[in-house]
């Protein structure tokens, strides 16, 4: 799983969000490290929808702007958890060793 995709899924953990909402949430969660451009975000969202990991929740028009909200599917939640466990295992591999202490 690519890093932007991981943060898109993570942004949706607390409930459905629209495009700009996901960008802001991913920025917060990564402490400003993952700054998703709109072009990158929608490629990631389309691939997630194709793979059944995310789906459209609802559409709202605010100030004449179309906002489509996305939510995690059950499969998406599982895939995100599996990826987090994999990363945690990889982290333990290094942090558990004496040689990794500063």
């Amino acid at each position, binding site marked *: *799983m*690519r890093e932007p*995709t991981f943060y898109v899924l993570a942004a949706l953990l607390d409930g459905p969000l*629209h*495009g*700009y909402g996901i*960008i802001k949430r991913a920025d917060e969660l990564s402490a400003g490290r993952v700054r998703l*451009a*709109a*072009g*990158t*975000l*929608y*490629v*990631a969202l*389309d*691939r*997630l929808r*194709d*793979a059944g*990991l995310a789906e459209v929740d609802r559409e709202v028009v605010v100030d004449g*702007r*179309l*906002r*489509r909200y996305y939510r995690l599917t059950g499969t998406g939640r599982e895939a995100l958890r599996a990826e987090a466990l994999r990363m945690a295992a990889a982290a333990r591999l290094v942090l558990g060793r004496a040689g990794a202490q500063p």
Partner: protein
Amino acid sequence: MLAYPDEYRREREAEIVGTLLDEAVHGQEWPSARQIAALAAGGLQTRARVAAATPRRMLADGLRLGAVMYFVLLCASTIELSLRHTVFGTPSGTLGHFGLVDLEAVVLAICVVALAGAAHEIGLAAIVGAVTIQAIMFRDAPVPFDPPHLIVAGWILVTGVVAALAWHPWLRPLRRPWSARFAALALAGIGLGTLGFLAVDAATLWTTPVLVRLLVVTQPQLSVPVAVLLVAAVAGLDPRPALAATVAVAADAATHLQTLVAFSSYLELPPVQYELGTVVSLVLAGAALAITVVSARRRVRI
């Protein structure tokens, strides 16, 4: 948003533009360079994602774009020849037929538009017409051209591709016209590129090193579009532009090869230019083929 497929734009443009506007700083009219680059890559990747659902369409699109590219290149060199006659007077080369060259340029332009519009029968008719004109020019050339059967080596390759697109039942169901935008853009590019080329050519042709001359001056009509196609293939994770580059460059290499063989007996022509041209084309074709295979095998990560 121009990089995205039309259908996708109809469905999603409002949403994507809405997100861009949400992000925009007050008073900002245009997206930043970072946003534009991401949109361009996103558009190309979306095209690849949509097309990847049908592998046949990937193949047909790549072959067709390659055939169109080759005729765009031929059209460019024919327009160049035609302009050269007009601007510099008839050179001491082998093609001394002003009117026929002009006619050939028009026929090749028809060919480009017909292939882009998926009218492969008209495209084939235009190819036959252009080959005939070419044959007449070579027959009447001041320097006898020998052996005559090698005249159309590159054309035979591309004609085969076009014929397969038109009649092969496996590719036929996927024929669909592209927008006229592409053909118009390519032809406008040729016109401007050729004028620039002539200006650079007149100023620098005989003072630059041979290899630089081939890549930058003598063959910009090949190397620039091929570079654009390969960048599009890598940025869009799409094997189609790379396949197109392979077809166009292979056809160009075939043309160079026949020129090399045919002109080898005429010592007054600089043979090194043709030899290097062939090597450059073959190397480019190999690189394009490698990128095609790699991008076709690569699975897109989520």
